[in-house]
């Protein structure tokens, strides 16, 4: 991966009618990078992707690819690949013809075409399916065809919309490995859109967390997972206990308590359930829920702050529902948040 910026979005604003879907978005993507756009539905991630592909008009701002301003270039001249969530295969064509579609438009034919298409099908492991009609294929196979169809075009950037969401759990893992392998082998710059943090963490070199049409945080999977910048990101990556910090007080959704010790400089603090020790500590709560998860037990405590979720080793003695319990919110185990909602 080189550090040179390959694809740049500058002050990008996209809108459906009067409602802005994305506002003033700035983003730089490196050559050969595998980037995830992560966020809940309606956050503008798919809209951003479609605008990069030229399928969504840009209200204002710029898209620059490989040194060329492509903001007003039409979709068929951008050299960008897009694998749609619905795969969008052409049902009237065979697998071979689907993959050949773009190449034929470039005027390729005969042996050169056959060679390229067959190589593309081999990459995704569908060499034996060339003559099939696409509606006869399974979801996973359809996605591979869609992937091959984009890959044979050797796009400058390959984008995938929710590439794993329509697959069952087993296929999902297989496809994840497959995507990583394809990306490594072809070296193509890849952007994929997902609402699933697990997918983003597992696949991406870098994650862009989006919310309400703006970027909430950009970072490596480790950074996003361990150092969320805001309460929104923290909540998204599984910090289930989030409090604001104000004048030495911890402020939860239900109320506030005085912190037992000095707090770090931050707008808020976030703990994963695993970081909350039970049985000792300066705070008090009542057990309102407990569930056994094999290696651990998950508790929900009712506290003056609001509900607190804790996960402790199942080997430790269990607390019954209704037990009054001491617990701790250790500042050193918390992720400091710069931004609270």
């Amino acid at each position, binding site marked *: 991966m080189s550090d040179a910026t390959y694809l740049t979005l500058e002050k990008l604003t996209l809108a459906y009618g009067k409602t802005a879907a994305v506002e003033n978005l700035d983003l730089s993507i490196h050559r050969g990078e595998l980037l995830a756009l992560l966020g809940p539905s309606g956050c503008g991630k798919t809209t951003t992707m479609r605008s990069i592909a030229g*399928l969504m008009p840009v209200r204002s701002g710029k898209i620059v690819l490989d040194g060329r301003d492509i903001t007003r270039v039409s979709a*068929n001249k951008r050299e960008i690949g897009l694998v*749609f969530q619905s795969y*969008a295969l052409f049902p*009237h064509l065979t697998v071979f013809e689907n993959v050949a*579609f*773009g190449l034929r*438009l470039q005027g390729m034919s005969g042996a050169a075409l056959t060679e390229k298409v067959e190589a593309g099908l081999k990459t995704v492991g569908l060499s034996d399916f060339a003559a099939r009609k696409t509606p006869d294929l399974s979801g996973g196979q359809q996605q591979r065809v869609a992937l091959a169809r*984009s890959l044979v*075009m050797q796009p400058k950037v390959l984008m995938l919309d929710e590439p794993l969401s329509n697959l069952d759990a087993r296929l999902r893992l297989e496809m994840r490995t497959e995507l990583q392998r394809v990306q490594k082998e072809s070296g193509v710059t890849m952007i994929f859109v997902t609402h699933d943090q697990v997918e983003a963490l597992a696949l991406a070199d870098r994650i862009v967390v989006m919310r309400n049409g703006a970027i909430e945080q950009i970072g490596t999977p480790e950074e996003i997972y361990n150092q969320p910048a805001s309460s929104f990101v923290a909540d998204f990556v599984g910090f289930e206990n989030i409090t604001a910090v104000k004048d030495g007080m911890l402020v939860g959704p239900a109320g506030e308590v005085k912190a037992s010790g000095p707090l770090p400089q931050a707008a808020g603090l976030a703990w994963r359930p695993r970081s909350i020790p039970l049985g000792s500590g300066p705070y008090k709560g009542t057990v309102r829920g407990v569930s056994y998860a094999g290696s651990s037990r998950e508790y929900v405590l009712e506290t003056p702050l609001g509900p607190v979720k804790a996960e402790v080793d199942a080997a430790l003695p269990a607390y019954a529902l209704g037990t009054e319990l001491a617990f701790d919110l250790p500042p050193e185990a918390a992720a400091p948040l710069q931004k609270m909602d």
Partner: protein
Amino acid sequence: MFQNRTEALALALPAAVFAAVVFLVPVALLLSEGFKTADGWTIQAYIDFFSMPLNQAVFLRTLKLGLTVTLAAAVIGYAAAYAIVTLPASSKGKMIGLVVLPLMISPVARTYAWIVILGRTGIINQALSAVGLTDGPVRILFTETAVFIGLLQLFLPLMIISLISALENLPRDAVPAARVLGANWFQVFWKVILPLSREGLIVGGTLVFTGSLTAYITPAILGGSKVLMLETLLYQQVTVANNFVSASIIALILIAMSFAANILLRRIASARSAK
């Protein structure tokens, strides 16, 4: 579904008998007129019919108008249908309502309305002379152009509706996918939209072409006796000339043209990119 075929056949019997008595038998009798002479069966009447210049002209004019109206309806229809299909659900219903609305008004009323617009003192002529483009009124009424406009207006909704239902079934994102793969709009239409909506084009095209051939009121009112079409000629042959042989020949020609149009449309619609 049924215990045996007899039950199903019994249920279909009334409709079959009805169709046979009031449709098949009379049509067969009428068509046989064209082949029957005192000496036996012959196609001499057809040879005579087509050797008359007037009949040739009427035949060619009918064919030409049928084809141009169908072609124009397909071009306008595809654009309209695609635009409507991409609308959000709420406005889609309203737009389809607007397309269907003319079908609820009698073709007679719709056709007479064109006289108001196309006539010597009609809106178009008044506008043209007001702007100073013409000295006197331009003759539009009782020309092929008038019949063309009238027929297109009459049958365009059928094309749009047929194409809407076909385009509704276009796979989501198939068009954007083709765009991203490098297809310009012409290629998108030719390689993706047309092959995936061919059923709609065949149905719509057959309806429009057959409708244009067999429409009587519109050519009668907007074309008059100046722009005879097969249908108006047939009416003349029966009511004025009392010539049932000619009428029978024209009827068979019309039927044959409808079938030919359907076959031709299937050909066109299934012809994809040249490989």
